[in-house]
């Protein structure tokens, strides 16, 4: 088996997608002071920080839009079927979620189970006025009734394919790939 990579978005493409999402979030016409981002670890946090920076620049506001970091491990529905237990990362949400309009940010939307877990995790922190969902890629195959409010790119996939996002903050390069396994010829 060998790996076949198809480039879906390059650095400029990712930037365009995030900029469009930032504008769409602002087009709702709501008070920006109640807006806050919560990113799902790890890449969702990086994307949430970028969205916060973009909106802070576009609106030229003095205080950046707050960003929280969420670890959803304790809320997963498959803890007992995994062959090991992962270290729990910190959940860092320094603002009171209650009353905020929260935009939850993740890199790839797939089955929807991560988002279900994230919604429960946020509910344990307080009662936001509203929670919206922004993802860089929606690859389909939902197993729960969850849909995103903001999507960078809709990418139909097969279940045996993988969508792999690399970001400067972690991997050193901005790149979105579709990876599939091919039988060696």
């Amino acid at each position, binding site marked *: 088996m060998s790996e076949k990579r198809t480039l879906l978005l390059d650095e400029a493409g990712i930037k365009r997608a995030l900029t469009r999402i930032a504008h769409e979030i602002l087009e709702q016409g709501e008070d920006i002071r109640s807006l806050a981002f919560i990113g799902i670890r790890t890449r969702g946090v990086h994307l949430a920080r970028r969205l916060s920076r973009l909106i802070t620049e576009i609106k030229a506001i003095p205080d950046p839009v707050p960003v929280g970091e969420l*670890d959803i*491990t*304790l*809320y*997963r529905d498959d*803890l*007992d*079927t*995994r*062959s*090991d*237990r*992962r*270290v*729990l*990362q*910190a*959940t*860092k949400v320094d603002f009171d979620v209650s009353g905020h309009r929260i935009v939850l940010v993740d890199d790839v939307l797939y089955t929807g189970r991560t988002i279900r877990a994230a919604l*429960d995790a946020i509910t*344990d*922190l*307080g009662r936001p006025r509203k929670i919206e969902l922004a993802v860089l890629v929606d690859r389909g195959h939902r197993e729960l009734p969850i849909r995103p409010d903001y999507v960078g790119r809709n990418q139909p996939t097969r279940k045996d394919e993988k969508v792999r996002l690399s970001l400067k903050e972690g991997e050193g390069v901005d790149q979105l790939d579709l990876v599939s396994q091919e039988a060696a010829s």
Partner: protein
Amino acid sequence: MKGFQRKDLVSIDSLSKDEILMILDTADSMKQILRRDRKKVPPLQGKTAVMLFIEASTRTRTSFELAAKRLSADTISLTPDASSLTKGETLFDTVKNLEAMQVDYVVLRHPQSGAAERLAKQVDASVVNAGDGWHEHPTQALLDLMTIRERFQKFDGLNVLIVGDIAHSRVARSNIYGLNKLGAKVMVAGPGTLIPPGLTGDSEYPVEVYNRLEDALPKADVIMMLRIQLERIGQSLFPSEGEYARFFGLNAARLKLAKNHAIVMHPGPVNRGLEIASDVVDGSSSVILPQVENGVATRMAVLYLLNRSPEAIRGDA
């Protein structure tokens, strides 16, 4: 990186440095949850944890029970007088009966060294050692390590002084293992009768022995006082409380000999005026209450990390 793969926690001796650090990192995150308004999270929902304490203990049992509840497990507490062990049932049979009631976690305190390890091999439930005889008390060492790391952010180059009855202390033993694995230097001080012979000869877990507390204190970054367990020590090994306090009790004057930043720890319950003076317990160097808070966070981390996958239960994870 692989995650935590063990079904049970029976000793610090059996853990790798990486495994200890995984528990400490997870405990740091658990502590944040304890400080929230809503202190409960769902990973152990629908699971049952039994506190099986064949030896009396209020603090450790409460701490474990609270930890299990914070993770949404149901808990039952069994104490010696309430259990059929007094009617002659073996520990194995007691736990097999509990397992028939679909119990997932057994937190065991037992007067016999090795009880937890033996039980872990016999049952499918995850076994956590909450103290076995003179052997180990792993979660106490883990909470101590967490507390030390919180203050110093490292273990390399730290001198940790353990004072008291080293010979009969499972807390000391677990800490000597854990501190060595993480790179700290361990010193012990106590009456010669309460220090096991040949302690320094163990090259895997080296320890420096001091017979005078005053000689060890100036080097210490951490001073860990052990409780004098009068119920464990034979009369012949321990002359008198007054004499012990005079030579090995930590009071304000002695504490001045230690480094300025030194912290004072104690696993509790404290005998004020015996191994430690009242003003030291309540003083600014004391981290005794933070230890108690970290105890709940550590036990949450352990209960969460223990692997309940079918592979782990079968024993081939």
